């Protein structure tokens, strides 16, 4: 089954995306991850002003059947948390690239983005994981 993988985002192996907009990054879960999760019971997200480190745990997603750790795609300070997603996690599943974003960060080091995957790389990564 194919899932939406927008071309203008960066991706991690653990299925977070990063949307970069003038030094600000929006972190969310990919549509592929949302399909794997099926439905979310609750989200644990970092608090505002928390310092994230690239590749390190920043929270978790509890689904009916499993739990997934969220790893930060970049280092930086959390400047906004999507409380709507915390209150109603279903929007993450329904609209992962829109209303269902998780946190916004001030990106520390743009060079870190080189370590992330492009949409093409990520598509191959998902295909491999599915087999």
């Amino acid at each position, binding site marked *: 089954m194919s899932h939406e993988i927008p071309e203008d985002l960066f991706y991690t192996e653990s299925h977070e995306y990063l949307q970069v907009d003038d030094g600000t990054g929006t972190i969310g879960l990919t549509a592929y991850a949302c399909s794997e999760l*099926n*439905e979310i*019971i609750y989200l644990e997200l970092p608090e505002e002003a928390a310092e994230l480190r690239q590749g390190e745990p920043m929270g*978790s997603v*509890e689904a*009916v*059947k*499993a*739990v997934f750790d969220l790893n930060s795609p970049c280092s930086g300070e959390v400047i906004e948390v999507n409380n709507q997603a915390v209150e109603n996690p279903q929007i993450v599943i329904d609209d992962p690239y829109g209303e269902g974003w998780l946190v916004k960060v001030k990106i520390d080091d743009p060079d870190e983005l080189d370590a992330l995957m492009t949409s093409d790389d990520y598509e191959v990564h998902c295909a491999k994981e599915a087999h």
Partner: protein
Amino acid sequence: MERESPLLSWHRGAGAKMVDFHGWQMPLSYGRISEEIAATRGRVGLFDLSHMGRIQIRGADRVAYLDRLFTGHVAEMQEGQVKYGFLCNESGGVIDDITVYCQEDYLLLVVNAANLDAVLPWLERHRDPAESVRIEDKTIGLSMFAVQGPEAIGIMDQLSSQRVSDLKYYTFTLTRVLGNLCLISRTGYTGEDGFEIYLGRTNAEAIWAALLRAAEHVGGVPVGLAARDTLRLEAGFPLHGQELSPKISPIEAGLEKFVAFEKRQFIGRSRLLDSTNSDISVRLVGLEMIGQAIPRTGYPICHHGVECGRVTSGGFSPTLGKAIGMGFVEQMLSNVGQVLEVRIRGKQHPANVVRRPFYKRKKKSAS
């Protein structure tokens, strides 16, 4: 023939998320898992269980033979009766938990998909060459569905040529569905009233389609393995590989009522009997989390911060709106009301030891 459900292409066509389940491609979910659970609890759920192992035992000595291996009393079974119990090893551990169907000229054993390849050689090894016993693997030739939930009765009465609502719990009958001979039992693994249906592979898709039409008419849905696992957890049923294993005895799992000690001999009997007479070290408990943290398989269970066991099954129960789990702890910590903790990502989260089942259906009052 390969281990392949006759409904494989139907599941794919229905958009199911498929999973490799012990060599079988089976549906994990068709849509939202909590909706499949709610449909089964409130209306009706339809399950393809073609992956379960089905073994027929024939021959004049079949009853005496199986009585040497099964913890239930086979000789006491009447035709049309179903019995749940265990195939144990010499140390009392469970090779598999199975149901036995007593038919006029054969016994049907329904075993876990994961254990078919262990059970078949175990059955062969304990067959005395002097006995008239034939063991036939019917897993591929026979298919198996379940219809579970409060509307299951109406659907099955409507589709079968005989009133199956007359069947008592854990009994079965042979009857026709769409003109095809089927074995229908009042059994299940969800905690709901319902039926399991055994039928020839060639008719499976047509009968599934008829069941689904009838189910959808009353708001029922097909249900995948993910919801099935949560349904059985809510109902407090053990799953082999988690609450039962060759290293876990039925006594430790709290299932001694399925061990017929009055039988003089069956494999594992003496060790099981010893363990009932001694203080066994661990007991299976039901855990209900006090907060929202969800226990998962393998998480440590603690008492005052000290690990005293592990979660064997856990998850979020959409029916109860609570996080629940099961696990083995020292017997002295296994009493209902005991407060324990589950360690989740480094933090201790309090949980109460509660009675199982976590969920109990409301029985209809006699009218």
